[in-house]
């Protein structure tokens, strides 16, 4: 009997990489090859660091929090996390200042009305959620993968910051795909860096395995089993997990805090709710809701 594994044999097939990548690497090698009495090794090492810090497919370049009342949410999170804001360029929205990655807030009804208006098939009752812009290497190929996996995607849309498409996954969760320009910013930290940073994205959906299959086929990200039938994507920044059993899909963000006991007190005194902090393997966590009932987590990591 023939060994079925023989079928895996893969003859070497040359594939041309992205031309800009090839040119950048060539210039870097030419530099590293230059005769020099010092710093040769450190140059190549810092070049490698630069490469590993580049945005990768599955990372997020921007996250917007969709909240019922924008002004009220601004006040609440300023009080709890010390956030300050600047107005966003468009719509009833604001950008959170001083974050380790781009984070914004937008009014749920205005944003969903706008998206429905441009044809995005959102479910009828969209919950407050975090809405991510997820990095893809090739937006056209990613659009095809979203559609092939049973999701919905708009056509590609060129913006000053890159090429984007609005998407809805196969369980009704909205997200954007973003092909960032080559010189785009470094990847965000895996779990935030400073007090108040976005540290984690918890994707709550009816069916966790279905979400894992959808996002691994669209973004090629690796998932590993998490707790209670959930799945974690440890390679993406910020780190993301999928949990099943939700009646309606929503993404619940975790924010990083220096002192969780004090932060929990601030949540409660600002009119929100917070569970008693619990020690987890990665840090201390509290499940919270703001004064409008929007869920979030605090993590002392």
């Amino acid at each position, binding site marked *: *009997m023939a060994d*079925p*594994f*023989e*079928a*895996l*044999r*893969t003859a*070497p*097939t*040359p*594939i*041309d*990489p*992205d031309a800009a*990548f*090839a040119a950048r*690497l*060539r210039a*870097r*090698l*030419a530099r*590293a*090859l*230059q*005769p020099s009495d010092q710093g*040769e*090794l450190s140059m*190549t090492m810092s*070049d*490698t660091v630069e*490469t*590993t810090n*580049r945005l*990768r*497919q599955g990372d997020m370049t921007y996250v917007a929090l969709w909240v019922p009342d924008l002004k009220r949410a601004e006040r609440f999170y300023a009080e709890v996390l010390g956030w300050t804001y600047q107005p966003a360029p468009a719509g009833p929205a604001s950008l959170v200042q001083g974050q380790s990655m781009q984070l914004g807030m937008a009014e749920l009804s205005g944003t969903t009305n706008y998206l429905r208006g441009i044809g995005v098939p959102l479910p009828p009752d969209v919950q407050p959620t975090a809405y991510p812009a997820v990095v893809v*290497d*090739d937006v056209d190929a990613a659009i095809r993968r979203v559609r092939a996996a049973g999701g919905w995607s708009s056509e590609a849309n060129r913006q000053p910051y890159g090429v984007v498409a609005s998407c809805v996954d196969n369980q009704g969760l909205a997200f954007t795909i973003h092909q960032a320009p080559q010189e785009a910013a470094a990847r965000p930290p895996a779990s935030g860096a400073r007090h108040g940073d976005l540290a984690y994205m918890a994707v709550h959906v009816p069916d966790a395995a279905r979400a894992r299959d959808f996002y691994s086929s669209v973004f*090629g990200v*690796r998932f*590993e089993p998490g707790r209670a039938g959930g799945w974690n994507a*440890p390679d993406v920044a910020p780190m993301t997990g999928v949990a099943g059993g939700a009646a309606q899909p929503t993404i619940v963000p975790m924010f990083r805090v220096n002192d969780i006991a004090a932060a929990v007190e601030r949540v409660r005194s600002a009119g929100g709710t917070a569970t008693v902090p619990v020690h987890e393997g990665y840090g201390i966590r509290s499940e919270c809701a703001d004064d409008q009932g929007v869920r979030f987590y605090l993590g002392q990591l």
Partner: protein
Amino acid sequence: MSGQPQAAKGEVAERFLALYDSALPYVYGYLLARCGRPVLAEELTSETMLAAVDALKRDEPPISLSTAWLVGIARHKLVDYWRRLGREERSLRTIASQEPSEPAEDPWDVHLDGVRARETLEKLAPQHRSVLTLRYLDDLPVAEVADVIDRTLHATEALLVRARLAFKRAYSEQEDANCG
């Protein structure tokens, strides 16, 4: 450098860059076909080429500039990557406890579907993926696989048995999922 240990540094640089131009699609193609992600393939290609430059500067033992030399470095970079990934995963959970210590292997008579086999490989633990890639995609003899992953022949054979079992299980599960 083969035959020209006295070559001037400028000439070495020129010859390396000429090799880079001709070999890049082979190195990138090798890595992309095995890791499946363009960004990761680019990253590992960079690591490969930078390591080649470092080796060239040391020139110990004398290096023969060729595509096969670069693909050999790429193979080590890929295995290093999977090793790092494996370490991260092991720090999160104990893989050993999930593996049978004395696995028995049944004969498996199936015709593997190329695309599905590739998807299955991507789902395996890094050390299984690594050993199956070297043995079957790269078609290396077991002794060479042992050399690349830096294990004894016996340990490599045992790892291959476990990896084939894990593959079979994942491949069949995927088949069930696709049918259901």
